[in-house]
Structures are given as structure tokens and as C-alpha cells.
């Protein structure tokens, strides 16, 4: 078995062939398979001299059209030329010229599995097989079985490991190619088999991408092979390559194709790349290729009409630093630099995110030097456009539009892929966090740290709606230096209040470089308070259905250490926030529901303890007085005990509803008079609440009960309806016996019966008319009132079970609930 190395790990453009071959030679590789197409390689004669100088063989040639490969290899004697499909007449021509063709099953290519390869191999007996352990594995084949079956037809094997963590999709599977022995393919078994059968072909190490440098990567592969029974030994001797090769290689022309190849290899296929470094590399390549004085990359969001600077190149322009390149009238950087007359501005004083009407922007695009590329973030379908502005040196002409577009289109593809990757990564991290965080606070804390780290910013705050959706409250915060005199009430935001409240109301994000200068800014002590917190991103947190549940606020994007990138939030950051919310909201919703249920249960228990401790107190007195042989009690304790008992029972019914949930409630209908069987007993049961506030039941009046016939309803459940509504009226009244008043008016209407509960208490906040009927939801401004948030939920459930409806028909003065019951409830046939 002979060991060769594929050159893909150096990228699709082999920048330094001499160093590459020297490295492989020193590590003990005996051959090389070239993946770069001939048009980016040194001439065949030079390359032959180079290989000869290091006693190495050209094992095969992979990249480029078959015809051009045949032409290039004329002076070599490669073991094979790789093909991915049988294509007439190219393949026939190659065979006629004496080359051996080896079919290489490859994911997402015409021959992607061994079953398809077998058809071609049957039809064309002269074709050999070039199996790739990883591609076969990804396609679902067993590499060892395939190699065992076709060992006689195999001139070489691509040895490659793979991990499934990136999945098998077109865009991702190649990221899963990992160093030998670190994936899940049993490469050792393949090597053992090849040793066993004394395989005399080539094993070709092919590492598509690596988190190590190419030299380190091939060194690690050599070490792994050596440790696993393959004869590969590093060489100590130094070979001197022939003079002349170096200068000839350097003559190779830079080309747009070479640039795109380099970019694609570096950013599209590797694991640890990011948008900012891509922007830097992209601009430096363009600048180099087109001899530019300055190149800038902007990101334009058509939906928001915002143009934001992503990157400027070169950094070392001296006085022309990125904060100063954008002029007030929106003219672009190059003109400003060239003329030297356009004023420059400090970032703090100029809105670098100048708003452009889309048409105006397009007018600005002189396509010989600028181009706009649409980019679709396939993760969340945000649409942005990259705008490239090149400013050439004097007397240098920029290329024509088509060449520029060729590069730009590849750049857009890479940008899309990186954006998607970034979103996917955040999503994965959050998914991992969901499995670890079982409380809201713990989970939010993790989310804050993820956002802070991903957006590279100084402070992050998450604000969530309160239960009745009337206010927005700070739920978690990190990186904020709280002032000591902070007003706790400032932790609440109303709809439309300040920048935060505006985002909550409009459901649209705000990206700003000048928070303090924004007209909508208000100076809350918990808001953005210093000049250092002006650069802000405030974005809505939405459920998948679209309902907003809160807002996330990020302040002060930090520069990287070398200040290479502008410290402005941009569309990428919004995409990250989008990905964060998509991943976090389902789990957060579950945690919020759980927390609400726990709070509800806690309040329920607390409310129950009140009558229970009263019963204990009254009983204690009875016991004491009986011991003192007082047969006539000093106070009417028994009557009190009955009232407390009734109250306890009503509260327990709510507990029972809570326990049983929406389903499983049975209705036991009886023929009921509302006044006698419902209203009168409830008036007794609420006595403790009335007495607690010094109220009198005289102020609870009714009208029209006698106009309603007997109804077939569940008496127990309707007692609960009346009790819950009346006890709410008492709880949410002003503590003033004079002003306490409740009216219950009933009447028959054409299609049923109406019952109106009116009181003149604190009322129901606008906007929470529906929310208050949900389980565990309490009125927003009610911290001073005990209650469990179940009363109206129970009322709603009971009324619905009877085919009726309940709604808030007036919020305050009076607060009015309108119950409608269907006429059929009075029918004798209902049971």
C-alpha cells in the first residue's frame, strides 16, 4: 500500500505548490492527487520537475474538465483520472488516449452511491473504482464492504472520516469531514483489511477542510496512519527544488476564479468562519485584484431602508478611518477620499446608518464600481443586499460588470451560507440550553449570555409582557451596571413608551447609533442612560405564530480587539436574534406556563390559608370558652365558622377546577331559580370578604331575576360563577364602604338570557379584556389584592360548558361583565 495526499486541503487554488510538495515529502507521502484544475496549476512540465525533485508521483488528477486534464497529464503517467459519471465522448476519448478512468461515487453528484456506480462499472468494464470512505458512508453504503467487493478494480482509495453533527444536507455534509480517526467511520477496519490483502494501490488522504492548518492537518493524518499500521515514515533529508520553478510559479496570473476558489474553500467549507472575516478577506482580495485604493462592503436592508457598513479595506488608511467615511449627504467613501474636500465626521456625530430610499440607492450604484447583491438568509428568510464599493487607484480601470458579478455572486453564496451557519449554531446552542435549564430564570440567564457572546455586545436585557399583556417588564439582564438610585418602577414599560415600548407596540426592530438622540427615547433609569450605551439593537420577541411576547435589548456592540470591524449592530445581528427567538420561544413558553401555574397554585394555597387560620382561631376561642364552662359564647363563633367553611368550600372548588383542568368537568343539571338557588346563598358565602372590608351586602342589588324562568344548569357550578364574580367585585373595590356598589341585572333577550354584573371598583385595564379569562391571569395593577387568577377562568369554563358566553362589556365605571346564556337552558327537555 502506497500513501498519497490530495491537495484539496490547500484549497481549490494551490497557492504555493513548492511548499505543498515539500511538506508532503517530509511527512513521508509518496504521491499526490491534484484536485485543482489545470488552469490554476503551474505548467505540466514545471510540476513534473517539482515532483521529480521530491521523488513523488502524480497519482491522479481530479479537478477540471476531463479533456484539459488529459492534456495536462500527457507527460505524466498517472494511475487514474477520476470521473464522477460516464460521459460520452470525453470518457471514451480519455480511454483512447491511454488514461485509466476511475469512477468516484460522490455525494450530490450523478453517481452518489455504489448501486449507481455498479451500473456504470458493468457497462464499462475498463473503468476502475475510486471509492471514498466518507462519501460512501454518507450515502448509506458500508465502505469496507464496497472495498472488499471491488478490491480488484480499485487503483486508489480516498481515506476520509466523517461526523454526522452537521447533517447530510447539500450545504452542510462537507463540514462533517474530519481528521482520520475522529469521525464515526471505521477507518481502522479499512486499513487493516488493505494490509491483510496486501493492497498494492494508493490510499489517498483527502481532507476537504480542517480546523488545523493544511500542513498540520496532513501531518496528523500521517501520524494516524503510521499509528494504525500503515507504512509512512517522515524524512529527515532536505531536497532542493530546481531553480526557476519558483519564479515560474509566481508568474501565474491572479484571476477572479482564483479569488472565488480561495474564498469558497476558506469560508464555505470550513467550520470556524464568520461573516466579518469573510468580509475582510473578500475586500482584500478584490482590492488586490483590481488595484484599489479603498474597498467597502455595506449591508442594505430594503425592508428597513438602512445602509450599514460591514467592512472597509484597507484599515491602515491613516486619517481615513472607518468612522469618518460616510458623509452627511450619503455620497460614498471613495469620492470623499479622492476629492479630499468632503468633510469627514466622527461616528458619534454622524448617523452612519443613513436611511436610503431604495431607488435613490440604486441610482447611486455605478455598476462599474459598485454592485448590489441580493442575499437571502435561508434560515429565517431575511432579505438583505450586499453593496460593494470599489475605489480604484488613479488610472486603473475596473473590470466589466460581468466579471465583477461573477465574483459577487459567489460572495453572496458564501455570505448566505455563513449567515445560515451562524443562525444554525445559535439555534443548536439554545437547543442544548433547553435540555439543561428547567427554570425560567436559569434559561433566560443562558439566553442572555448566548446573545451577548454572539452579538459581541456589552449589555443585553430581555423584557417580557406581564400576564395581562398590558406592560412590559424586565425579566433578565446582563452586563448592565445598575445605578444605585434606580427607580424600581422604571422596570415597567407601557406600549409605545420610549424605544423599548415602541418596539413592543410596532413589533419592528430598532437599530440605532444614537439612542439618546432618537425622538422616541425617554430617560428611564433602566433605559439606555449613558453615551456609551447609544449603539443599540432593540428587537421584538415573537412566538412562531407571530404574537409578540417581549423585547430584547442589546447595547454597545463591542469592537474586536484590533478594531477591524465597525461597532454597529447590523442585519446579521437581527438574524441572530431571529434565530435565538425561534429556538428559545417554545421552551420559554413552556417555562412561563409552568411558572404561572406554580404561582397560581401558590396564591391558591395562600388564599386557602386565610379561612383555615380563621377557623383555627375561632375554634380556639370556642375550646377555651367551653373549658371555662361558658355555654353562651362571648361572640357568635359558630356562625363565623359556617361562613368560613362556605368560603373554604368555594375556594376548594376553584382548586378542584385547577386540578382537573379544562376537561373532565361533569355537569349535573337541576332546575334552578337564579335568585333563590344561586344569588341568595352566594351572598352569604361572601360574607367574610364583605366584613373584611367593612362592606355591607345592602350595596349588592339585583334586578330582573324574576323575569327569568327556571334554568336547567349545574347549580354548584353557577354558585361558583356568582361567587367568583362577586368576590372579585369586593377584592377589586376601592377600600371605601360608601362607594362600594354591585348591581346584577338580568333580562330575557330574543335568543337567550343576559346577566350583567356591574361594579364601581378599580376596573379592568384596556387591552386585557380577553386575557383575564385565561388560567392564572390576574389584573395587571393588582399587587395589593390577593387572588389566584383562577376565578374568571373558572367562570368562563362554566359558562362555556352551558353553551353561553361571558365578556367584558365595559372596563370601568362601571366595570361590567356580560353573561349570555342560550334560551334552550329553560327548556324542559334539556336534561
Amino acid at each position, binding site marked *: 500500500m502506497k500513501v498519497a495526499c490530495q491537495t484539496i486541503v490547500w484549497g481549490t487554488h494551490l497557492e504555493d505548490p513548492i511548499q505543498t510538495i515539500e511538506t508532503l515529502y517530509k511527512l513521508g507521502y509518496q504521491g499526490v492527487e491534484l484536485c485543482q484544475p489545470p488552469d490554476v496549476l503551474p505548467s505540466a512540465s514545471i510540476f513534473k520537475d517539482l515532483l521529480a525533485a521530491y521523488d513523488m508521483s502524480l497519482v491522479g488528477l481530479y479537478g477540471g474538465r476531463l479533456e484539459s486534464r488529459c492534456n495536462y497529464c500527457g507527460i505524466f503517467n498517472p494511475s487514474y483520472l477520476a470521473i464522477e459519471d460516464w460521459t460520452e465522448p470525453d470518457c471514451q476519448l480519455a480511454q483512447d488516449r491511454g488514461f485509466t478512468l476511475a469512477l468516484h461515487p460522490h455525494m450530490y453528484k450523478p453517481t452518489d452511491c455504489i448501486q449507481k456506480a455498479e451500473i456504470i462499472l458493468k457497462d464499462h468494464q475498463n473503468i476502475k473504482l475510486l471509492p471514498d470512505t466518507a462519501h460512501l458512508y454518507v450515502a448509506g453504503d458500508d465502505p469496507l464492504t464496497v472495498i472488499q467487493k471491488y478490491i480488484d478494480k480499485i487503483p486508489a482509495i480516498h481515506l476520509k472520516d466523517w461526523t454526522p453533527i452537521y447533517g447530510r444536507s447539500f450545504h452542510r455534509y462537507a463540514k462533517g469531514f474530519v481528521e482520520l480517526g475522529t469521525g464515526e467511520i471505521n477507518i481502522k477496519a479499512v486499513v487493516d483489511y488493505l494490509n491483510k490483502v496486501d493492497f498494492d494501490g494508493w490510499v489517498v488522504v483527502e481532507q476537504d477542510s480542517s480546523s488545523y492548518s493544511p500542513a498540520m492537518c496532513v501531518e496528523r493524518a500521517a501520524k494516524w496512519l503510521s499509528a494504525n499500521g500503515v507504512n509512512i515514515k517522515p524524512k529527515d533529508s532536505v531536497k532542493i527544488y530546481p531553480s526557476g520553478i519558483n519564479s515560474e510559479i509566481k508568474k501565474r496570473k491572479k484571476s477572479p476564479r482564483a479569488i472565488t476558489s480561495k474564498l469558497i474553500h476558506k469560508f464555505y467549507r470550513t467550520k470556524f468562519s464568520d461573516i466579518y472575516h469573510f468580509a475582510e478577506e473578500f475586500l482584500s482580495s478584490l482590492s488586490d485584484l483590481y488595484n484599489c485604493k479603498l474597498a467597502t462592503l455595506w449591508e442594505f436592508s430594503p425592508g428597513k431602508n438602512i445602509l450599514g457598513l460591514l467592512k472597509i479595506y484597507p484599515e491602515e488608511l491613516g486619517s481615513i478611518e472607518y468612522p469618518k467615511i460616510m458623509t452627511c449627504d450619503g455620497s460614498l467613501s471613495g469620492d470623499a477620499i479622492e476629492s479630499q474636500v468632503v468633510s469627514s465626521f466622527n461616528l458619534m456625530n454622524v448617523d452612519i446608518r443613513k436611511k436610503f430610499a431604495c431607488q435613490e440607492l440604486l441610482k447611486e450604484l455605478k455598476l462599474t464600481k459598485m454592485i448590489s447583491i441580493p442575499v437571502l438568509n435561508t434560515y429565517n428568510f431575511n432579505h438583505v443586499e450586499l453593496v460593494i464599493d470599489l475605489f480604484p487607484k488613479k488610472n486603473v480601470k475596473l473590470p466589466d460588470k460581468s466579471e465583477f458579478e461573477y465574483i459577487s455572486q459567489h460572495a453572496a453564496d458564501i455570505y448566505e451560507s455563513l449567515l445560515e451557519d451562524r443562525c444554525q449554531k445559535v439555534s443548536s446552542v439554545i437547543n442544548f440550553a433547553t435540555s439543561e435549564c428547567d427554570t425560567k430564570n436559569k434559561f433566560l440567564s443562558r439566553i442572555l449570555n448566548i446573545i451577548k457572546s454572539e452579538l459581541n455586545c456589552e449589555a443585553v436585557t430581555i423584557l417580557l409582557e406581564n400576564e395581562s399583556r398590558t406592560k412590559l417588564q424586565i425579566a433578565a439582564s446582563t452586563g448592565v451596571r445598575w445605578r444605585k438610585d434606580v427607580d424600581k418602577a422604571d422596570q415597567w414599560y407601557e406600549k409605545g413608551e420610549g424605544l423599548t415600548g415602541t418596539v413592543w407596540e410596532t413589533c419592528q426592530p430598532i437599530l440605532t447609533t444614537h439612542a439618546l438622540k432618537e425622538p422616541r427615547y425617554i430617560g428611564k433609569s433602566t433605559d439606555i442612560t449613558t453615551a456609551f450605551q447609544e449603539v443599540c439593537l432593540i428587537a421584538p420577541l415573537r412566538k412562531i405564530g407571530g404574537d409578540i411576547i417581549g423585547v430584547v435589548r442589546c447595547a454597545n456592540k463591542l469592537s474586536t480587539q484590533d478594531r477591524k470591524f465597525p461597532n454597529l449592530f447590523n442585519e446579521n445581528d437581527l438574524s441572530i436574534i431571529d434565530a435565538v427567538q425561534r429556538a428559545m420561544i417554545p421552551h420559554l413558553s413552556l417555562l412561563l406556563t409552568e411558572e404561572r401555574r406554580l404561582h397560581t397554585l401558590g396564591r391558591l394555597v*395562600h388564599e386557602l*390559608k386565610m379561612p383555615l387560620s380563621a377557623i*383555627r382561631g375561632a*375554634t*380556639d*376561642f370556642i375550646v377555651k370558652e367551653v373549658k371555662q364552662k361558658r355555654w353562651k359564647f362571648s361572640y357568635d363563633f359558630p356562625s363565623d365558622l359556617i361562613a368560613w367553611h362556605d368560603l373554604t368550600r368555594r375556594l376548594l372548588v376553584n382548586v378542584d377546577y385547577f386540578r382537573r383542568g379544562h376537561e373532565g368537568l361533569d355537569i349535573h343539571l337541576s332546575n334552578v331559580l337564579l335568585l333563590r338557588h344561586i344569588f341568595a346563598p352566594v351572598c352569604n358565602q361572601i360574607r367574610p370578604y364583605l366584613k373584611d*372590608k367593612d362592606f355591607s351586602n345592602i350595596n349588592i342589588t339585583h334586578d330582573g331575576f324574576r323575569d327569568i324562568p327556571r334554568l336547567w344548569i349545574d347549580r354548584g357550578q353557577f354558585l361558583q360563577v356568582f361567587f367568583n364574580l362577586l368576590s372579585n367585585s369586593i377584592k377589586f373595590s376601592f377600600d371605601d364602604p360608601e362607594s362600594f356598589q354591585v348591581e346584577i341585572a338580568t333580562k330575557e333577550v330574543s335568543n337567550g338570557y343576559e346577566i350583567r354584573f356591574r361594579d364601581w371598583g378599580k376596573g379592568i385595564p384596556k387591552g386585557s379584556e380577553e386575557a383575564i379569562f385565561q388560567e392564572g391571569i390576574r389584573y395587571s395593577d393588582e*399587587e*395589593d389584592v390577593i387572588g389566584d387568577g383562577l376565578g374568571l377562568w373558572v367562570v368562563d369554563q362554566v359558562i362555556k360548558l352551558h353553551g353561553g358566553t361571558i365578556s367584558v362589556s365595559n372596563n370601568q365605571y362601571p366595570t361590567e361583565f356580560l353573561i349570555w346564556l342560550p334560551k334552550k337552558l329553560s327548556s324542559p327537555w334539556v336534561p
Partner: protein
Amino acid sequence: MKRILLIDEEKEPMKYYLMALKQANYELIVTRTTDAAIKFLTDDNNQCPDLCILDYMLPPGNRYKGNPDCNQGMSTGRLLYNDIRGIYPDLPIIILTNSRDAFKEMKIINPNIPVLQKIENAPFDLVEFIKEVLAKS
């Protein structure tokens, strides 16, 4: 006659405690809100009580409204306790609570704080507890 300031918003359930305290010959001042309690204690015209009894779970009132430490009224007593301590550092304070968690929490903060669980102690137990606390002070 010893003066006791009682701070509890629940009037009806507390009436048995009040009856027991009256029978035990204490002078009672009852406030139902945190604001009224602080106003009473900071008013120069009012004489300092000999003992203060406060409920752990109290409506926040204007004083603690929106304060997250108040936990929607579930922990108001802890904040009020500290504020009263700030006004009268030596005033004996008894905390009443229906919550076992609150009882434990206060005991962790300071094992010497007199805390009484209402549900497990009838009115006459409170009278005995007050006697103990006053004797120690």
C-alpha cells in the same frame, strides 16, 4: 399597658388574634398597609410601640410597588422588617406568616428573628409568644 402595632391587611381572619390580644390586656394599633405602618412609625407625634407584629405576605402598597424583591407581595414583610429596623433598631418585631418557606427563609437570614406560623398557632399561642419576646427584649 404594652402597646402593640399590628400590620396585616386581613381584618376578618385576624380578628380572633385581636380579641385574644385585647383579652391579654394589650393596647393595639392596627394598620392594614405598609404605607400606613411606616407613616405611623415615622410620625414624631406617635409614641414608639413596645412591639410590632407584621404579616410576611402583605400588599406592597406604594412603598414597594413594582419592586421585584417584593415578589408581588409574597415577600413584602421582609422588606418592611428591614425598613422598620432602620427606624427603630431595637424594637421587637414578630413576623407572622402562613408560608413555611417564608418561615424558613427568615430563619436562615437571622435565626433570632421571632417568626410565627399562623396556621400552626392559634390566637392564644400568639399571646404566649408575645410574652416571651417582650421578656427577652
